């Protein structure tokens, strides 16, 4: 999938490109609003990641212009301005989501994927996900390891499912808070760690291969590490 990142700060642009490429996106860069608009008006991208404050055309103006030209490529805004008003402005101009700097990259990735899923709802969960000796059957709400069912509490299951939906990708703790408990991301995230420890005790501890990993300062990931 092709993503256009429009960000004037070279360092940030480079990091985003590297991160997105690691997640198997094709990434192109534009350093100002005018260049970004020229590229994006082709409609050739699956999503745009746009900094709000850009030289030339601002991010908001650029997206407004694109929408006026009937280009409806989904847009994820990045901005240092984080008041509700700023967020609303971003969404009103035609943005699909809004992330405030400083952001954690996994969050950018998660939100980008959420946007893409929203635009193409045609990718339902596979009937079966397999990671090493773990098998997840979403329809049956069943997780097994080495063919043996792992008994989880409802919250533990929700957490495991979230990690399994994003196998190999780091899930930020704020996403866990929002998805598993439906709370605002501003609650103390320490409780997430406790829940993760619980999950790990049931899902990982009895088995030799460890699948749930905590990346300090970043989030949680479920993957088969060799």
């Amino acid at each position, binding site marked *: 999938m092709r993503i256009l990142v429009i960000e004037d700060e070279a360092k940030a642009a480079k990091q985003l490109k590297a991160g997105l490429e690691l997640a198997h996106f094709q990434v192109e860069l534009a350093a100002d609003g005018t260049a970004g608009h020229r590229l994006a008006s082709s409609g050739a991208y699956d999503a745009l990641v746009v900094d709000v404050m850009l030289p030339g055309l601002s991010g908001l103006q650029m997206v407004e212009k694109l929408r006026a030209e009937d280009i409806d490529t989904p847009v994820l805004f990045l901005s240092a301005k984080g008041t509700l008003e700023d967020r609303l402005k971003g*969404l009103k101009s035609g943005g699909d989501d809004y992330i*405030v700097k400083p952001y954690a990259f996994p969050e950018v990735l998660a939100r980008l994927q959420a946007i893409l899923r929203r635009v193409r709802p045609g990718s339902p969960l596979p009937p079966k996900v397999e990671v090493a000796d773990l098998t997840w059957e979403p329809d049956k709400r069943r997780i097994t390891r080495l063919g043996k069912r792992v008994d989880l509490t409802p*919250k533990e299951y929700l957490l495991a499912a979230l990690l399994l939906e994003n196998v190999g990708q780091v899930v930020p703790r704020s996403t866990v808070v929002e998805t598993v408990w439906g709370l605002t*991301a501003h609650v*103390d995230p320490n*409780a997430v760690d*406790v*829940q993760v420890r619980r999950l790990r005790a049931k899902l990982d501890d009895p088995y030799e291969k460890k699948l749930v990993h905590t990346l*300090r*300062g970043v989030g949680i990931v479920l993957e088969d590490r060799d």
Partner: protein
Amino acid sequence: MTGLSTPSLRRKILGTLLGGAVVLSAVAFCIIELGFRIALSQARQGILQTAARDASRLRPSLAPGTIVPTLGEIQWRMLGPSGETLAQSEGFRSKFPLTGWPALDAPFEVDEGAHWLRAHLPLDPPETGSIQLVMDLQAQRFVATRNTGLRLFMVAFTLLAAYGLGELIVRQSIRPLGRLAIQAALIRPKDLGRKIPVETFPRELGDLVASMNIGMERLQEAFQRLENLGTDLAHELRSPIQNLRSELEGLLLRPKDARGLQDALGSCLEELDRLGMMIEQMLFLARCEEPSSELRLGPLQASDLLRGIADYFEVSAESVQVELGVEASDDLAIMADRALIQRALSNLVSNALRHTPAGGRITLAATTTSKGEVNLEVRDTGEGIPAEMIQALGSRFTRVEHSRSRSHGGTGLGLAIVKGIMHLHGGDLELESRMGSGTTARLRFPPDPTGRTRRRSSGAHPILSPKEP
């Protein structure tokens, strides 16, 4: 003291004083003038009556047609019972014909132009005839004129005296204002604590001075808070930066394996998150100063809200062997911003968990007061907060230092944020604590005048929820 748009106080007072003096003088002048005129005319009438009486005595000795001398400025003519002229002063006939005199029952008359005062009076006894008298007012004019001049002079003198006295009074009474101006000009941010001495000013100004002192005291407090906040913020920023620095130095100086490297970098990220969170929280607190900003109010069911939070902290509580319970009936509701109240409650429960030893209990409860206010409470059976700390706890960067408190990555802004959130909702945060037996943190909401809170809550918070670094 002088301004272009507003006249000076001195000029105002003096103007009022002089205006008053002019009006009073004019009134006094009129009254005196009127009195004088009445007195004068009565005196003249008296003179004419005396003259008539005197003339009555001459009656028997007068032969008809006698020419008599004038009585000073009074010319006269005596008439017999049938109206025939008995006697008259020189030239009277040529000036005053017999007809056209006032009747006997309204005997006095002043002509147009006030040249003459005429009188037609009965003789004594009346059946012997009547007497006509004429007083030449022109000849008397100088008396009145001289008096008018004197009176005008007195009025002018009064005015001048009023001006002088006014000037003196105004100067005297304005002088403390000048002193106050000097004192006020001496106020500096550094010595806001210095009070202007109230007792050296007159009582009326004393009130003003006292108000100024109170205002300055508040300013000083705010100033102090701001100063402390700046210092505290700098200190608080210092420790994550120090940790970052040490971690990165360690990376450079000591070779590490991949795992160690990952750990060190993770630790750096955590410190950065702490910095980011502090910035977010400081900005959030700044926004809380302005009520009405960014509130997305909706009716929320209290029990729902509390259960959601309890649900989230359940495993954390379990892991430190603290019981976590909810006490709330389903019919209590509040008008509030869901995301903000979740944040407030989460801060309170985090605090409670940190300060409640194993075996303790934390209760989330919703209660009502007799006035209809709904309170959300977080009660713990922890160590409690020393009374002298409670007041300070809502301020930024205040922490209770306990031997038992577990180390944590908090920013010291948690309670300040709770307070800010309650401020936005028009409510407040109340802390009650007894050492050794526990603490109750109470979120107090004002009663909802619309009664809308009776409905069930709905709707998540799509925009205000994202991100915690």
